């Protein structure tokens, strides 16, 4: 018997999201985390209306960039605040997809390892990631 499921992940695990951002090239020291959401700033230092719990400040994003952040919503999931400008530069759709891909791996890997399972990762030639989880009794 086997069970097959298809899904689109949402961001819920803060540490997995941080791990995903590190996997796409940011240093851990460049990623701020806050218990309470704090303001994001624009490229001219102007305060933006958006607030976030996980933030990469503009100086780490690129020239003329704005702060990029992820705000934790009441349901526990995170929504991204990425300006239109940054969506055409450092955070192009391919990078945003790569963050989702890395997030999915790290979220599942952290959960399953905590349950004592083995997790093996393999990069496939087509850009997909294969994850094999073992240790079921």
């Amino acid at each position: 018997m086997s069970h097959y499921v298809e899904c689109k992940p949402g961001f819920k695990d803060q540490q997995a999201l941080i791990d995903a951002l590190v996997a796409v090239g940011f240093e851990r020291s460049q990623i701020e985390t806050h218990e309470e959401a704090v303001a994001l700033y624009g490229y001219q230092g102007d305060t933006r209306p958006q607030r976030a719990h996980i933030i990469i400040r503009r100086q780490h994003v690129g020239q003329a960039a704005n702060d990029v952040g992820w705000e934790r919503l009441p349901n526990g999931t995170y929504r991204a605040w990425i300006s239109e400008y940054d969506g055409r530069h450092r955070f192009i759709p391919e990078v945003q997809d790569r963050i989702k891909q890395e997030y999915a791996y790290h979220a599942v890997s952290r959960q399953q390892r905590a349950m004592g399972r083995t997790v093996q990762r393999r990069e496939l030639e087509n850009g997909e990631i294969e994850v094999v989880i073992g240790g079921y009794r």
Partner: protein
Amino acid sequence: MRHKHVRMIIRQDGSCAVDAINFTDATCTQATQQIMQALAGQVAEEQLKPEAQRLPPQANRQMEGSR
């Protein structure tokens, strides 16, 4: 790989296909549900399917002999 395991493919757009393989009972559903919880995602498709029947060695020999 004949023991129970879960194979997950994470596509380039972040969508995931999760397949619990070689489970002999309904724990396969639990295995995939745990992973769905970690992904906090919306299920787009779900299938419960019997695995392909594995014939015992004797049956295989008989099939080969009848060729």
